[in-house]
């Protein structure tokens, strides 16, 4: 009888750590762990040595001291007497602002361009191809600089808006495009405006509730309610009625030409516009490709089956194609949103005061705290990325194919 030797009965030899597959993976891991730890320890040790040689310490106290620099673009109160910590928060808000605006505009541009690229219209499809290839194959930084140059070099100066100048304001003298930025009307919140906002929010809630009800009803009885028109009415009518009942609590303050520049109204700076448009157009080109491939990924049989059931083309798109295409589209779309957020750090090219320019730029230069500043900056971007991908993954889980 052939006997199979029991491996466990053999005494353990040191060589087994390398030649026996059961132990080798352990050996490799321990070795790798030791090497990585030694590397990290070396980095840490060098840092401590270098810091002490420079006479620096490692603390975040500088966040509480006076910043002493101005930030022209801000969403909350800030002056040069504020702290470095507050300057960092201003920067964070500015980064989030441009990332948020950029994601919305990029999605709109991307979806339109992606759908039009599939259009049967030859000329439109070609134009969209030119747009997509043009933006995808040229660095974002160049587009930011080009759009910034357009905004500052090819737009009229405020003095051209005077009598006899060759520039004029748009939309009933409410918007002025100048080389110092775009001036738009700013709202003045009068008495009763809180109520108006509350009514508006309530109408949004009502729209959401109605859509939910309509879907339930359609699933239960098959009856389709006019969702679009009801939503549109709910969106406008209550707010407009209350606006007049309350006697116009919110008024607009138009920008006016005074001195050398426009006063009043809201100044949207060129740096924000250039960054926003460039990020949106650039990311939009990528999103267009994602949308296109998502729609192409839904097999043609689905469309034909929907037509065979008697669905009209727009219902086919809404009820059959899009829900399936979305599953393909969402994951790469998330990574495009993340890219856009990270690319907003190119704000440095146009002087937009994002978190890299405040915390990672002026604050570091003024306090000499490179290590702490860059660490905080890195942690901010990392946390933002993780949060965006986390939230989007939740949504992705909600729409993805439910299998057994």
């Amino acid at each position, binding site marked *: 009888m052939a006997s199979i030797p029991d491996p466990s009965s053999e005494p353990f030899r040191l060589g087994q750590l390398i030649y026996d597959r059961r132990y080798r993976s352990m050996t490799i891991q321990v070795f790798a762990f030791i090497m990585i730890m030694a590397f990290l320890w070396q980095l840490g040790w060098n840092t401590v040595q270098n810091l002490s040689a420079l006479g620096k310490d490692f603390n975040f106290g500088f966040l509480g001291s006076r910043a002493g620099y101005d930030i022209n673009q801000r969403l909350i109160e800030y002056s040069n007497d504020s702290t470095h910590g507050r300057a960092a928060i201003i920067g964070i808000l500015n980064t989030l602002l441009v990332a948020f605006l950029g994601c919305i505009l990029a999605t709109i541009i991307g979806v339109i361009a992606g759908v039009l690229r599939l259009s049967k219209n030859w000329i439109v499809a070609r*134009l969209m191809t030119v747009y997509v290839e043009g933006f995808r*194959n040229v*660095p*974002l930084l160049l587009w930011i600089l080009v759009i910034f140059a357009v905004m500052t070099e090819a737009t009229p100066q405020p003095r051209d808006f005077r009598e006899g100048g060759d520039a004029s304001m748009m939309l009933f003298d409410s918007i002025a495009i100048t080389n110092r930025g775009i001036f738009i009307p700013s709202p003045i919140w009068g008495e009763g405006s809180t109520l108006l906002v509350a009514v508006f929010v309530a109408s949004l809630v009502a729209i959401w509730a109605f859509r939910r009800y309509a879907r339930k009803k359609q699933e239960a009885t098959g009856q389709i309610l006019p969702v679009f028109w009801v939503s549109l009415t709910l969106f406008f009518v209550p707010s407009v009625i209350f606006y007049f009942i309350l006697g116009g609590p919110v008024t607009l303050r138009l920008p006016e030409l005074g001195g050398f520049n426009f006063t009043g109204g809201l100044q949207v700076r060129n740096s924000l516009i250039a960054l926003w448009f460039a990020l949106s157009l650039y990311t939009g080109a990528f999103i267009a490709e994602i949308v296109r491939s998502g729609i192409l990924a839904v097999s043609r049989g689905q469309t034909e089956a929907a037509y065979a059931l008697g669905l009209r083309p727009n219902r086919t798109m809404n009820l059959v194609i899009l829900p399936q295409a979305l599953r393909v589209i969402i994951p790469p779309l998330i990574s495009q949103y993340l890219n856009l957020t990270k690319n907003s*750090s190119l704000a440095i090219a146009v002087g937009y005061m994002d978190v890299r320019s405040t915390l*990672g730029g002026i604050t570091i230069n003024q306090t000499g705290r*490179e290590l702490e500043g860059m660490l905080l900056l890195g942690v901010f971007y990392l946390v933002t990325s993780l949060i965006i991908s986390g939230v989007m993954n939740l949504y992705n889980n909600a729409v993805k194919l439910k299998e057994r």
Partner: protein
Amino acid sequence: MAHSAKSSVSYVRTEMLPEQAPPVSESGLVKWVRENLFSGPLNTILTVLSLLAIYWVVSHVFQWFAYGIWTANSLSECREVRNALYADGRNVACWAVLSERWNQLLFGFYPAEAYWRPVVALIVFFIAVAPVMFNFGGRKLAIFSAVSPFICYWLLWGGSIWGPILTALGFVLAWLAYGQITRKFGALAGIVATILVPLIYWRFGVAPLTGLVDGILPIGIENIQSKDFGGFMLALIIGITGIVLSLPLGILLALGRQSDLFIINKFSVIFIEVIRGVPLIVWLFTASLLLNYFLPPGTNFDLMLRVIIMVTLFAAAYMAEVVRGGLAALPLGQYEGADSLGLDYWQSMRLIILPQALKISIPGIVNTFIGLFKDTTLVVFIGLLDPIGLSNAIRATTEWNGIYWELFIFIGLCFFVFCYAMSRYSQYLERKLATDRH
């Protein structure tokens, strides 16, 4: 009989009618226009809008573009020439900035008499990648590919020829050590020797040997510092080095992330996520501001080398995710098949898994390459003179103060040509490697 019946009925035609041309609306250009441009109200509106947009762009840009002035020494001279040529005061481009400064945009402050060196280095690079890219040349060219990095380095930076040669000798030593020591002392000692011998040689042997040989037989070309590198050449050097190095590193990281080994897996995940979560520009600032903190006191090395390392690590993390997608897309049967053939881990990866996984991930890999190449423009923020940095420098001179579009168009076209070529190449490669249809 059928034949006689046919002839007897007078109203049946017996000969074929001549073919008629299809109606005008159903053939040729008219049909194409009807179907592709005016097939419905929406399409008609879109066509008209597109035509209007094209007309607007062409009418505004064409004249500016085509009547541009090519010879002048400054922007003001350009305007004088324009006023002399065109009495109507039309706005035209001043391409003279390109004919005047093209060498700076392409080569930075690289000495003019040495322009042939980067050009030859680029040609060497293309010959070296030919075996990989077009399946061309075979074994002899592969040896050339192996030594080409040293040739390119020597051509670009110059100096004594012995430095690169003796450095390359380290790899030969490693190969010899592997062969000899494995035979005498076994596989483990062989691996250890393969790693240690060249390291010791590079650390202690190369510098004195180079000095020695160079003293006996000085062969070399003019040494050029990294700070003189600039323009499109700099973008190409950083981009190509990053591309060549990030692919193997990315594959290793992807394998690490797919690995069963707990520690290796976790370290790969942390590395990839941390690198990907933070923008490249922050990493570049880290390289320029913080690297001195992390290195042993007193060391300092070239900013360009730091940038290349950072760009490579950054691209490698993205590459790892792309390759991981390819690895995950392979059916489990391929892994099991490789195991059942008795292949060990590296054999199965090299022979079965990676060839298929990499083929699947070609579009993603090339997109990462294109992204990396475009990202080289970010080095302008830490003081390297890439094309955009040079365009700022040119605009800062008194002669060309206020010139924007001509420079932007030139830089954009340069990048477009390379990136578009890469994306077309990836489509060619996909078609070439496709095995599922014939």
